[in-house]
C-alpha cells in the first residue's frame, strides 16, 4: 500500500542505498567500457552485480567503523564513503587520486573513512580487520570492523587463522564471505570443501548465516543483527552472501568457464538492483521514475569523475620516492 513503508529503512535511506548501488554499478560498467578502450592500465576487478552486499552491510557503519577489503574493492570503497572522483583518479593513475596514483584499483584506501584498503593479496584483509576490531575494543566506543573475503580466498590460511583469533579474543569483527561462485575461472564448489560457510564458521566457534546476497534486504537485516551484536560485545560472526558477478574475473576475462546462457540468466534473474527496485516500487515507497532520476544523476556523477580523472595531472619523478616512510 502506497505510503506505508514495510522496510527497515526510511524512504530517504532507501534512496540513499539505491544511489550507492547505482553509483557502484555505473562506476564499474563505465570502467568496463573504458578498459576495453585501452584507457585504463593494470588489473581491474569489477564489483558489478554484487552491490547489495557492500551497500547492505555498509549502511550500518560510521566512519569510526573499519573495513578491510579485497582485490574487488570498488564497491566497498564507494559504499564506505570514499570519494568517487578520488577513486577514478586513482584508477587512472593520477595525482589527487585516493592514493595519489601510487596504489591503483587494487589498493584504493581512505583511512579517514575507515576504509583500510583494497588488497591484492587474498585473505590478507582478515587479520587487519581483527586488528581494527582490537583497537576498537581498547577504545571502547562500540566500533566494529568488517573483513570482506571472496569464496576462493576463504581457503587462505590467513583468513582461517583470523576466524580463530577473532573468536579467541572475542573481537567485534564480522567476516563477510562474498560468494560469487567463482575464484577466477574455478568454481566455488571445486575449491571450497564444504557446502555451507555456516559449517566452516562453526568449526571456529563462530555463529554464521547465509543470505541471498542479491537481496539487499536480506543482507541488510542479517548484517545489522550481527553488527549490533558485535557492538555490544557479543563477538565475531560470519556472513555468507551468495551472489553473482556480472563481468569477468578481471577485465579481459572471456569467461568461457561459464555455462551456456549463465551470464544472461544471472543478469536477468539475479540483478540485485532490479530486485531492489521491484521490491521497493511494489511496496509503493519509491516510484520507478524516482529510481530513473537517480540512475541519471549517477550517470552524471561518474561521467564527471572520468572527466576529472582524465584531466588530472600525472605524478612525476618527485613523487616516485616520497611516502615510503613517515621518517627515514
Amino acid at each position, binding site marked *: 500500500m502506497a505510503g506505508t513503508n514495510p522496510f527497515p529503512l526510511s524512504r530517504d535511506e532507501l534512496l540513499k542505498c539505491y544511489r550507492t548501488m547505482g553509483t557502484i554499478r555505473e562506476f564499474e560498467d563505465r570502467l568496463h567500457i573504458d578498459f576495453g578502450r585501452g584507457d585504463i*592500465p*593494470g*588489473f581491474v576487478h569489477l564489483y558489478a552485480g554484487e552491490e547489495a552486499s557492500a551497500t547492505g552491510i555498509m549502511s550500518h557503519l560510521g566512519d569510526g567503523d573499519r573495513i578491510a577489503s579485497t582485490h574487488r574493492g570498488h564497491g566497498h570503497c564507494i559504499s564506505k564513503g570514499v570519494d568517487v572522483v578520488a577513486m577514478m583518479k*586513482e584508477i587512472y*593513475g*593520477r595525482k589527487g587520486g585516493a*592514493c595519489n*596514483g*601510487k*596504489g*591503483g584499483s*587494487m*589498493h584504493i584506501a581512505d583511512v579517514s573513512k575507515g576504509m583500510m584498503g583494497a*588488497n*591484492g*593479496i*587474498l*585473505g590478507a584483509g582478515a587479520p587487519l580487520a581483527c586488528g581494527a576490531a582490537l583497537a576498537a575494543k581498547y577504545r571502547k566506543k562500540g566500533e566494529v570492523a568488517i573483513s570482506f573475503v571472496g569464496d*576462493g*580466498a576463504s*581457503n*587462505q*590460511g*590467513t583468513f582461517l587463522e583470523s576466524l580463530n583469533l577473532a573468536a579467541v579474543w572475542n573481537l567485534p569483527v564480522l567476516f563477510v564471505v562474498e560468494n560469487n561462485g*567463482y*575464484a*577466477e*575461472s*574455478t*568454481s*566455488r*564448489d*571445486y*575449491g*571450497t*570443501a564444504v557446502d555451507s560457510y555456516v559449517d566452516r564458521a562453526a568449526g571456529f566457534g563462530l555463529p554464521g548465516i547465509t543470505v541471498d546476497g542479491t537481496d539487499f534486504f536480506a543482507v541488510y537485516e542479517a548484517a545489522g543483527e550481527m553488527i549490533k551484536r558485535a557492538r555490544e560485545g557479543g563477538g565475531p560472526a560470519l556472513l555468507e552472501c551468495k551472489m553473482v558477478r556480472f563481468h569477468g574475473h578481471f577485465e579481459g576475462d572471456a*569467461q*568461457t*568457464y*561459464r*555455462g*551456456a546462457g*549463465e551470464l544472461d540468466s544471472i543478469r536477468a534473474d539475479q540483478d540485485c538492483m532490479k530486485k531492489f527496485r521491484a521490491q521497493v516500487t511494489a511496496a509503493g515507497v519509491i516510484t520507478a521514475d524516482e529510481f530513473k532520476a537517480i540512475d541519471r544523476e549517477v550517470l552524471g556523477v561518474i561521467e564527471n569523475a572520468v572527466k576529472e580523472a582524465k584531466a588530472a595531472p*600525472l*605524478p*612525476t*619523478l618527485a*613523487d*616516485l*620516492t616520497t611516502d*615510503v616512510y613517515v621518517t627515514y
Partner: protein
Amino acid sequence: MARTISMKQAINEALDQEMARDPRVICMGEDIVGGAGAEGEKDAWGGVLGVTKGLYAKHGDRLMDTPLSESAYIGAAIGAAACGMRPVAELMFIDFMGVCFDQIYNQAAKFRYMFGGKAETPVVIRTMVGAGFRAAAQHSQMLTPLFTHIPGLKVVCPSTPYDTKGLLIQSIRDNDPVIFCEHKALYDFQGEVPEASYAIPFGEANVVREGKHCSIVTYGLMVHRALEAAATLAKEGVEVEIVDLRTLSPLDMDTVIESVTKTGRLVCVDEASPRCSIAADISAQVAMRAFGALKAQIEMVTPPHTPVPFSPALEDLYIPSGAQVADAVRRTLKGGKH
C-alpha cells in the same frame, strides 16, 4: 629445428616435453587448467596469462587446479617431491611468496641438509616476477634476492625464450628445489627456440655481448635494458660486455670475474629493490675477489628503495631504463683510481 616463438610458448613447450618424457612430472597451481567444477570450457584459462593453456588436453589430470591455498599446495608439491614425484607448482606472482614462504625456505630448501644428505626434493616453483604491467606494489616485485639468500634453493631467471626452455627443462630434471622466475614483461618476447628438447646447465652465465670497456652484469628483463644501453654507448665508441647470469643460485662468478678482469669496470643492473640485492651481491663479490682488476668504482643500477608504484607515469620511472644503465657506464668510465 628452431622456430621463433614467445617465452610463454617456450615455457609451455618445456612443460609439455618434460611431462611426456617423465611420468613423475605433475603440474599444479591456481587456474593452470581453469574451469574446474564449472559448467563451461575445461582448460578455460591455462593459467592467469594463458601460459599452460593446452597442456590439459595432452596430459589430463597430471595438471591440477588448486584451491587458493599456496601454503597447502606448494607444500604438497614439496612433499610429493620428497616422495619421488617431480612436481612443478605455480606460484602465480612471486609477490604471493609471503603466504607460503615457510614451505619453500624452511622445508624444501633445508630438507637435504637437516636430514643429513638423505633427502631429495626435486620441486620446481614457477612464478611471475617483475614490473611493467601496471599491477602495482603487490603484483610487480622482483624478490629474487630473498630466494637467492636462502641456502638450499636454486634460483633461475631467464631473459630469452631459448634460455627459458632450456633452463626450465633443467629445472625439472634437477634434483634440488628450483625457483623459476618468469618475467611477465617478457612473456611475449620472441626468439629462436629449437623444437627438440634440451637442457641448459645451471651456473653458466651467458656473455650476450662482448666488449672491452665495461662489464654489465644482469639478468632477466634488465638484460634487454643493458642491450639498449650497449647500442647507445656503441655510438659513443664505448663497447660494453654484457653478462646474463641466467641462474642467480648457483652463480657463475667465474664468468663475471673473467669479464671484469678484461674490462676493469663493472655495472650491476638489477630490477630488484636495491638493499641486499643481486646487484649488491655481485658487486660485493667482485670487490672482494677481483678488486685488483677494478679500474674504477662499481656502479649499481636498481629501482629506488620504494614499493612499485601503480601509475604508469611512475612505474616507467621506477624500472631501470637503458638510459640509466648507459649513464652508470659513463660514470664508471669517468671514475678511476686516484
